[in-house]
């Protein structure tokens, strides 16, 4: 059996990778993918904990996280396509209409 701390460490590294992607890339789609990766790493840690405590609750929480992620992707990508239609760009540095 693989120790839970290994899974937690792996999920931490994956999460940090996602943070790097969100902070450094300028394409909104890549930012989106990085957010998905961060959600995935959280799921990984949750499943590892569920396996360690032999309880179904962790896996149920993962199921809800996946549900919310699916809803988020649908709305987010619709927003992205709409922004692209009006601004002809997906560069998050150029979408600054609401900037004070």
């Amino acid at each position, binding site marked *: 059996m693989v120790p839970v701390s290994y899974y937690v460490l792996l999920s931490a590294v994956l999460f940090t990778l996602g943070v790097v992607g969100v902070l450094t890339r300028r394409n909104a789609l890549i930012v989106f993918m990085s957010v998905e990766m961060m959600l995935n790493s959280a799921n990984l840690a949750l499943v590892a904990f569920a396996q360690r405590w032999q309880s179904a609750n962790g896996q*149920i929480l993962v199921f809800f996280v996946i549900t*919310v992620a699916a809803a988020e992707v649908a709305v987010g990508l*619709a927003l992205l396509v709409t922004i692209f239609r009006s601004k002809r760009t997906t560069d998050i540095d150029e979408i600054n209409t609401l900037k004070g």
Partner: protein
Amino acid sequence: MNILIMVIFVVLAAFTLAAGVMVVTVKNIIHAALWLIASFFSVAAMYLLMEAEFIAIVQVLVYVGAISILVLFAIMLTRHVTGEGVRQLYKRWWIALIVAAALFGVLIVPTVFNYEWAVQPSGAQISIASTVEIGTAFMREYLLPFEVASVLLLVALIGAIVIAFEERSTRRRVLTLAEEVEQRRQRNESLRLAPTTHASETSE
């Protein structure tokens, strides 16, 4: 057996991390999406390794089947600006790297190394959380969140349609391939013509 599981875990972890690094660093956005699918797959395999078969199936169905297809469609709908020639990195990317490293070092590593992982959980059942158990939990103590999740999905469905809906009058006509090639040829020709006229003017 334990060594075999360990080897499988190490291989999967290495592949997941490699795929994650590729998603963040690769220039071509389609390749980034494909690497993202690869990382989803290896995480699903890791769920199987943890005997969470229901979550593994849901991961493959929702992430690999639906979310990545949606991302690929979004890439295709916005393809004119997602080429390799566009500058992709935030200009002060090294600050972001430092922030991420600090986040990792300060927040996450102490949690992993200071917690007593070796302590056996008290009152743990012998049975593993199976799909049957999860289904029962959904129909009993998690019934309300389950219903709320379905309402959330419905709201997201309607919201996505409302946001992305385009009036018929404002919709651009979809060009056939021949028309698109013709359009591109004309654009190239006008580009080729413009510098030569400019050069002849300056020579005179």
